[in-house]
């Protein structure tokens, strides 16, 4: 069953086309990686799908709800972990989580239970009462993800989730993302080849706002006639330039 259906989604800024007639669908429980070099249109796509930016043309349906006509309904089934770590620096980790529970209309008891559960899942318990602004980059990113997950979204957008993390923190996050697979629909943007290869069910390669190819890692390698994913990506992107 489709969790996301994107139909000719387009975003133009004056003379620039950031996303060009993107058509794509994502199944429930699938993890789709949007892969591309800088300026490919990945973040703009996420911004449109999460109702932050209005498309110039086209539409997308998340859990059957239109991002153009029913943004409030869409917002109730999604969560976003933005590219930059989006936490309230002056609040403790617990208060940050309470903030998100509150804006989703949860009562105190539900919020407390959710915070206990998500903290255990993401091993945040030890830092719950520390100020978010004092946490290291890795902990802040983990908190940022917990804030995205605590509302129990059906569809989760992770925009460059491991950007700037060290190897161990990245490995921990990968484990956690893997544990989410099948339970929620996840759209992840990245420009790390190994991340897309390790985590995704399918990879959508974008360049200059256009979708070049969407397939499994094996399918992409086969299409490019190579057994190395990075080489396949380079060939496909460079092929589109010619």
């Amino acid at each position, binding site marked *: 069953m489709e969790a996301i259906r994107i139909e000719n989604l387009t975003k133009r800024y004056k003379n620039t086309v950031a996303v060009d007639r993107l058509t794509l669908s994502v199944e429930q429980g699938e993890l789709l990686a949007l892969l591309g070099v800088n300026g490919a249109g990945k973040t703009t796509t996420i*911004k449109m799908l*999460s*109702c*932050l*930016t*209005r498309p110039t043309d086209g539409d997308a349906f998340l859990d059957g709800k239109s991002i153009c006509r029913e943004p*409030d309904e869409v*917002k*109730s089934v*999604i*969560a*976003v*972990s*933005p*590219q*930059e*770590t*989006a*936490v*309230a*620096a*002056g*609040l403790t980790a617990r*208060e940050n989580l*309470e*903030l*998100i529970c*509150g*804006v*989703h*209309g949860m009562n105190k008891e539900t919020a407390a239970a959710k915070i206990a559960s998500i903290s255990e899942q993401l091993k945040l318990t030890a830092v719950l009462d520390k100020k978010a602004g004092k946490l290291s980059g890795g902990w802040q990113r983990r908190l940022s993800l917990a*804030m*995205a997950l605590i*509302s129990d979204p059906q569809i989760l957008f992770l925009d460059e989730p491991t950007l700037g993390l060290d190897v161990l923190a990245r490995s921990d996050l990968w484990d956690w993302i893997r544990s989410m697979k099948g339970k929620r629909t996840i759209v992840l943007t990245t420009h790390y080849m190994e991340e897309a290869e390790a985590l995704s069910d399918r990879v959508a390669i974008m360049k200059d706002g256009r979708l070049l190819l969407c397939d499994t890692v094996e399918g992409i390698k086969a299409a490019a006639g190579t057994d190395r994913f990075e080489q396949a990506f380079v060939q496909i992107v460079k092929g589109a330039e010619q």
Partner: protein
Amino acid sequence: MKTYTLAVRNAREILRDPLNLAFGLGFPLVLLFLLSVIQANIPVSMFEIQHLTPGVSVFGLSFMTLFSATLIAKDRGNSLLQRLYTAPLSSVHFILGYTLPVVPIAVLQCVICYGVALALGLEPSVNLLWAVLLIIPVSVLYVALGLLCGSVLTDKQVGGVCGALLTNVSAWLSGIWFDLDLVGGVFKRVAYALPFVHAVEMERAALLGDLSGIFPHLWWVLGYAVAVLAAAVLLFLRQMKRQ
């Protein structure tokens, strides 16, 4: 509930910053002490406690503009607002969430200011209640200025515009530190075309129990508060759409 959650978060961010407490509360109180000491040694009618306190309590509100503008600008800069914009919240939740918590902080600041003034010799009277009550529309004006600046400026720009420019403009053009008649001319006309001097004169009249004297100043303050709040809401909504 959603507005309350946002308001609590914003109040916490403001109150937990030691610099905010130092400037918002400490600086006006230091001015009160200092000018009262000067007044004790060299009597100047401008610095008599019943004349000085209303001015200092209004001047202190310019820091509320700085606090709320800095908070909004920082939230815009670090993607927290982006995250919140993807939550099921309306623009009303955001606007109330950013403005409501600052008004009680501003009133509390005013109460502390008058409390310290009592200790410094201000005569206790029921008029203090009027002075505190009338600080509310003035607070709304300053908080709206914060919403407006926070919606269009970066947190670094906010430091310059609200921290330096607004505090100076509201100090020089308010008649707190010197009598505007001493300068007169265009300076005085500009000052009276702006709301700051009206806010101070309204507070002074309230503290003296001259309730008819709060007019027309109250209309000036209310007019500016409504106009600035309307502009702030429009600019906040514009930056929300630009996300």
